[in-house]
């Protein structure tokens, strides 16, 4: 009776009139192997009543949802990370193990374990159930994708399976309306009459025990499941093309090209709309409030700050639409398969490919997408190099400086020099990402072994619109919550530095020149002049912390020119060309390849790694690289007489 004494009490036999709805909610933990459709099941049961957070002290995502059973019993459903065994090889799997065993701090021990299995692929799931039985809690096994399995010609003796396993078994179709009816009915009967719990005698299994468990699982499946007379060949036929050594890579590149295009083109109209909306809001504020510090706070700090972050929401949604679709279809694991050797050379996991690619749009969704990497070491390595990929926010800065300083002529028979420089900046970003990851592998993780590359390639299936929609809503929520808290706070600080103190009444220079930011700009001169930066650049770097492209507007402010419109940007370019040396311009480009100039990215790294330390490591190494690169560029250029 170890756990029944815990808060949710068993239905007292003497009070049959007590309605189930009056009972404390039942705690149910959702467990299953990866790719079993567990997330779809979670969505089907809880609908939109979901809360996503992190477990206390670890960076593992905690997903909880609520629902009410047909009989009126309230249920709190905890979605645990997918795992092949309770042996816990990663922080995610430790959470699953501890939650199942009821020893996760701050979590109520589960009253029931709902184990989800892919009916078309039962071997590993049945072994997991055999392992779970030792925990001593009631288990309900749901054979998910039951319709697909029947369609493929599998036959199931559910009664025998339940008898062999000693746990109730129900068929389920998570992605179909009404596909969880049998499951809910069985849940009700199990919750109404809780089975006597036994003490947990679970312990980590060694090789011999895992073998024995798998052999037992295989025996049970042989006895209860009739395989189809003719195996399904859709997956193997698709794989013959999609995993083809050459064609597979070409298709992958095409898919990525499409994704990249979509992130830029599809997201543009809503991004413009959001930007216009916030500009309008700012203008409204200007109409109703007197000019002064309060207006500046509301318009530039609050509205401008939130707008600068929210504008990335469409890109994030388009990107995640692709990621979720590919994941649901079963292609994501294949992309990892195709890229494994290429990424592996730099010490990155095959799965790091998509997050790194996403970072070309913006490092924030890229870093969020690293959640597809299971191993913490590999995930950290990816997060650490993702901001080196040239994000779209660097483009305005690159464009401005290239247009102003790089002559518009062709070289080497037809190649545009300006385009070549732009391409070079991208290439330096990619090259340095691979290099840094290689160094990290050699220095930081020298002693912690890389996870061996081994992952299941799930059978292809049609993506479920419902699941994709829930996934998108969830990502949007996570991003908005962050934008509303950490990121907004950072924006405020930067606004404060750029606006306080106010210029004197007889000011003849832009307001920013009197601010703390300007003082810091002058203060930084001794440090930054060896890399060719004047104090105006230093000042522009500070507001640029909010978002890199803000640096363009800031340079405009400092040089008293509006860079709002095309003409303004042109004029700014001409002004800069007159005031800066080519060496300074090149140094600034080199600086921007590496500089950790994005408060939002740093805040995201802090959130996703769950540690300030990793954020500072990222900030430190990128700053060092930026300084070194700008220094080398400037000094070389000066030596060649370009100063």
């Amino acid at each position: 009776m170890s756990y029944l004494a815990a808060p949710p009490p068993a239905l007292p036999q003497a009070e049959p009139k007590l309605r189930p709805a009056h009972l404390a909610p039942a705690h149910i933990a959702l467990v299953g192997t990866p790719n079993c459709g567990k997330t779809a099941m979670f969505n089907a049961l809880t609908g939109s009543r979901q809360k996503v957070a992190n477990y206390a002290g670890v960076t593992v995502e905690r997903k909880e949802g609520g629902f009410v059973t047909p009989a009126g019993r309230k249920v709190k459903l905890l979605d645990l990370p997918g795992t092949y065994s309770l042996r816990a090889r990663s922080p995610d799997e430790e959470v699953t193990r501890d939650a199942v065993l009821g020893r996760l701090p701050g979590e109520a021990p589960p009253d029931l374990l709902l184990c989800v299995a892919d009916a078309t692929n039962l071997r590993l799931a049945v072994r997991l159930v055999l392992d779970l039985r030792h925990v001593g809690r009631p288990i309900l096994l749901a054979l998910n994708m039951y319709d697909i399995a029947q369609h493929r010609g599998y036959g199931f003796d559910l009664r025998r399976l339940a008898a062999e396993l000693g746990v109730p078994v129900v068929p389920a179709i998570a992605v179909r309306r009404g596909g969880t009816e049998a499951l809910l009915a069985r849940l009700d009967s199990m919750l109404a009459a809780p089975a006597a719990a036994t003490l947990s005698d679970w312990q980590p299994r060694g090789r011999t025990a895992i073998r024995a468990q798998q052999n037992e699982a295989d025996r049970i499946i042989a006895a209860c499941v009739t395989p189809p007379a003719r195996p399904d060949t859709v997956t193997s036929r698709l794989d013959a093309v999609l995993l083809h050594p050459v064609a597979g890579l070409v298709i992958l590149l095409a898919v990525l090209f499409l994704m990249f295009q979509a992130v830029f083109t599809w997201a543009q109209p809503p991004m413009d709309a959001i930007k216009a909306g916030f500009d309008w809001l700012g203008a409204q504020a200007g109409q109703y409030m007197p000019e002064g510090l309060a207006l500046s706070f509301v318009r530039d700090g609050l509205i401008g700050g939130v707008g600068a972050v929210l504008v990335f929401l469409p890109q994030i949604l388009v990107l995640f639409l692709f990621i979720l679709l590919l994941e649901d279809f079963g292609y994501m694991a294949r992309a990892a398969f195709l890229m494994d050797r290429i990424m592996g050379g730099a010490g990155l996991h095959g799965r790091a490919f998509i997050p790194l690619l996403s970072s070309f749009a913006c490092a924030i969704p890229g870093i969020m997408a690293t959640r597809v990497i299971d191993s913490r070491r590999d995930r950290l390595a990816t997060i650490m190099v993702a901001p080196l990929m040239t994000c779209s926010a660097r483009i305005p800065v690159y464009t401005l400086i290239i247009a102003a300083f790089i002559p518009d002529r062709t070289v080497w028979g037809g190649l545009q020099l300006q385009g070549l420089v732009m391409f070079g900046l991208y290439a330096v970003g990619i090259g340095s990402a691979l290099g840094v990851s290689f160094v990290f592998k050699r220095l930081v993780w020298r002693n912690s072994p890389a996870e061996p590359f081994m992952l299941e390639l799930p059978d292809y299936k049609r993506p479920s619109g419902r699941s994709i929609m829930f996934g998108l809503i969830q990502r949007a929520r996570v991003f908005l919550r962050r934008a509303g808290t950490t990121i907004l706070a950072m924006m405020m600080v930067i606004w404060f530095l750029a606006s306080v103190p106010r210029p004197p009444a007889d000011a003849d220079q832009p307001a920013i020149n009197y601010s703390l930011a300007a003082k810091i700009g002058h203060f930084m001169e001794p440090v930054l002049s060896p890399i060719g930066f004047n104090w105006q650049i230093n000042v522009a770097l500070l507001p640029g912390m909010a978002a890199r492209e803000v640096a363009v507007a800031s340079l405009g402010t400092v040089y008293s020119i509006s860079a709002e419109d095309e003409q303004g940007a042109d004029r700014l370019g001409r002004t800069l060309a007159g005031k800066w040396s080519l060496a300074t311009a090149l140094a600034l480009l080199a600086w921007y390849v590496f500089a950790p100039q994005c408060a939002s990215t740093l805040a995201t790294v802090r959130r996703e790694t769950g540690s300030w330390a990793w954020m500072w490591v990222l900030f430190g190494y990128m700053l060092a690289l930026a300084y070194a690169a700008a220094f080398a560029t400037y000094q070389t250029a000066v030596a060649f007489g370009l100063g």
Partner: protein
Amino acid sequence: MSATLAALSRLGAARLGFRGRIRALDASGCGRALPPAELERRLLEMGFVEGAVVEIRNQGLFGRDPIAVRVDDATVALRRALANAIHVEALDPTP
């Protein structure tokens, strides 16, 4: 079936399309990252147990690595170095 380990081949060395039955697992010398016993446990947990039928379905471009192996109803991708831990006896190819 008293085939000795020496008479068996390693899955990591097999050609594309190879089909065979697992006879033994031995992960010693198959990777410096983790101890052999742990590698063996991980292979077992992905369904690579003695008696299971495996087939190499796909392989990568560089060094024919990694490989996609069908194990009963599941497909598992892994590096050839690790697949060398799986000792197999050849079966007739699927008709």
